[in-house]
């Protein structure tokens, strides 16, 4: 069974969390905020493209703004297959984390 990679998982959830404001810059900001790592915009878009190709995400176009030099935004949205994939991955996490006590972790 195909699972999501960690990055894909993070991106999908981020998109979901942002709801209707899920576009490039916002996704990136949230990603940086959550993981603490910066990410190159191009890399992120690459991964997003891949997600679109796998049909986990779909895109819409938005309005242009002056800060963007008059260019439009592309909004991302998680699709049903995407949500299914997320669920699958979450079940996997539960499965593998099941019953693991806090005490095993070192100080």
């Amino acid at each position, binding site marked *: 069974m195909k699972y999501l990679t960690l990055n894909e998982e993070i991106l999908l959830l981020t998109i979901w969390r942002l709801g209707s404001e899920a576009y490039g810059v916002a996704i990136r900001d949230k990603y940086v905020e959550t993981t603490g790592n910066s990410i190159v915009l191009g*890399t992120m878009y690459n991964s997003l493209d891949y997600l679109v190709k796998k049909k986990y995400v779909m895109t819409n*176009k938005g309005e242009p*703004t002056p*800060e963007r030099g008059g*260019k*439009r935004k592309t909004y991302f949205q998680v699709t049903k297959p995407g949500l299914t994939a997320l669920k699958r991955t979450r079940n996997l996490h539960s499965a593998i984390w099941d019953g693991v006590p806090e005490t095993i972790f070192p100080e």
Partner: protein
Amino acid sequence: MYQDKIKKPPSFFEILLKRTSAREKDFTISGDFEELYHRMYVEKGFISANIWYIFQVLRTIQIYSMNSIIWSIMMFKNYLKVTFRNITRDKGYTMINISGLAIGMACCVMIFLWVRDELSFDNFHEKADRLYNCVMRVEGNWWGSTPLALKTVLEKDFPEIEKVVRLAGRNRDFRRGDYSHTELGGFVGTEFFEMFTFPFIAGDPEKVFENKLSIVITEEFADRFFKDEDPLGKVVIMSNNQDLTVTGVLKNLPSNSSLQFDFLSSIENYTNIQRLNNSWSVELNTYLLIRENVDIQSLREKVEGVVEKYDTRMDHEVILALQAVSGMYLYNIAGGGPITNVYIFSTIAILILLIACINFMNLATARSGKRAKEVGMRKVMGAVKSNLFQQFYSESLLSTFAALVLALILVYLFLPFFNSLAQKQLTFSMIGSTSALIGLVSIVILTGLVSGSYPSLLLSSFQPVTVLKSSFRSRNSGLNLRRILVVCQFSATLILIIGTLIIFSQLEYIRNKDLGLNKDNVVTVNMTRQMRSNYRTFIEELRNHPGIINVTAASSIPTQVGHINPVYWEGKTRDDYVVISHVILEYDYFETFEMEMAYGRSFSKEFPSDRENYIINEAALKLTGFEEPLGKRYSIWEDENEIIGVVKDFHNTSLHSAITPTVFTLRQKQFPVSIIMAKLKAEDIQGAIRFIEDTFKTFSPGSPFSYTFVEDTFDRAYRTDRRVGTIFRYFAGLAIFISCMGLFGMASFMAQERTKEIGIRKVVGASVSNIILLISREFFILLGAANLIAWPAAYVIMSQLLNNYAYRTDIAIWIFALSGISVLLVAFITVSFQTIKAAITNPVRSLRYE
């Protein structure tokens, strides 16, 4: 929140970004970038924002490039798959194609190695670009020999010249203990080793001739005389009277040196210093090393008149010229030389490669019809013309590469054979040298580009609509170009064949031409110093042997006249002289060689005055204009006497040059006789030779005995010609082979394509021969056109070649006719072989497809 003035990110990188993210996202990414940039700018300032932006752009570009590379690799995998499928589906055609290319490339490579070797002659000397050989033009004839005193004069008058050295190339006999052998070599000044690069393996180059009774030898010489001993310091005896100490041993000379020798001794052993510095007798070679950055043209102008100025003996017109050592081998002073062969073979190489490439193009283009549907589909699926171009070009490059591998194998296998043909020692590893690799790579690239060009262009231009219709007539794709290509191919082949035949007939002409003398079974023996006083007795002794018909002696053998002298005659003054060839001989010279007299008689013992009189040849007679030559006055230098005979012209040099006017004397004034010649009976030649050897040993004990046959020396002059002829023959054969392979492939392909047509014709009542004629007719027309082109072209080229000969055969019509007909025949057989197969197929089978 945002400033009134909106800041724009650095434009260069913005453009870069837009260019690489070729995604139809309405510039979304760049919009995101700008937004972030703006934020950065506000928060962190101008510099940070810019740095961030540039970094982000670069990384993004990197990601996108990797993407497209991965895509290209994926496409390439597909192309490879398709190519392999094509190859395995048409194994026969692919084999034909690749082998044809391989043969063409192999020939190219071998000829390339040969040319490289030829061009490298004498270029291994460190100072090769500054070394020159002195040559003289006397009265219109060129001579490689120069006067003894030339060196002194050149050193004195020309500061542009750094060093001058004299080289007297002579053979000498050497003895050590019981072993004696004649060795090739010469006498040089010490500067020789500073000018020419011949590495020493033992001995000090600067000290070798400190003591003049020294000798420098090569490894080969050392092997012969000293076997495993160290030769340094040991003694060999030269000419049976001089003890020379070995002061140096040289590495064996490379084969691409026109200076070949096994020993070198001090020039003072050749003659004394007085003579060396003052005599203007023309006897040896003079080489110069000019200073760096000297203008050779102006030096050439300055030295022109040197010999005329200082040689006061006569008023010759003598022009001194400087020949570059690096070109010495390739370019004969009088024009022509081995360089002609270089041009010829380079042309052959190109012709053969062309034929092979044309083959490839033809076959590939012909089969392109089959791929038409594939191209159509690809275009429908979104392929652009450049994609298709890429695909088909990589196919042909792949074939070229496979051909290269095969070609290298062929070269490896056939190089020894080629070496024996061309008398060279080329090795396979020579391909590894830089210049060779460059040459090889360029051959491959050129072949790939040329042979792949047309098929690729044609295939990628197919329009989907046209090709996907079932009515597409694939066999007409590129028909006209293919016709042109076949014509070119066969023209080239015909040129090669005609060339071969012409060379062959010229060689036959040489072999059969009446030379004006009979040189069969004549043995020559060089006189030794010991024999100089009593050689006449030697001759008489030889005459006694029943197996020896006649014996004589001369200063040169009849086919190699080299000495010259000025002459004048009745009606001319001494200042009005002409320089002609001069042979000094003993009685019975003309009789030994069965030369006929046109006027008068030969020298005879009955007339003591003959010792001072002259015989001239017809060419010399023509110069005088006498109608009654007998009794007329004739002079060499100051010796005036009369003409007692005129000998019919005989060829005194190879047929490359005209017969020179020659005068013959018994008087040994200017130079001596040195060669004894004996005509032997055809039976028991070995017995006669043994007798000569025994007699020789009694007259010249301790000297090695060696003999040659006049006819061998004569034939040797044509060795190169024969070799060229043989090589031509092989290459012509190869060319025919390749062309026919191509024809074979094409014919079988066409036959296949026209199966239905043939089937219908048979049903309607055509016979097998009708069909064969029908299909072959097209090829015949093309061949006819090829003949039309090839005949004049071959005529022009071969006339150039034949200009090397003063005496040549006529270019006969039968040669052209024969080539044309034989090519026609071979082509016909090839084509009909395939068409017969198609023609005897049961029409039912071929028409079944509908």
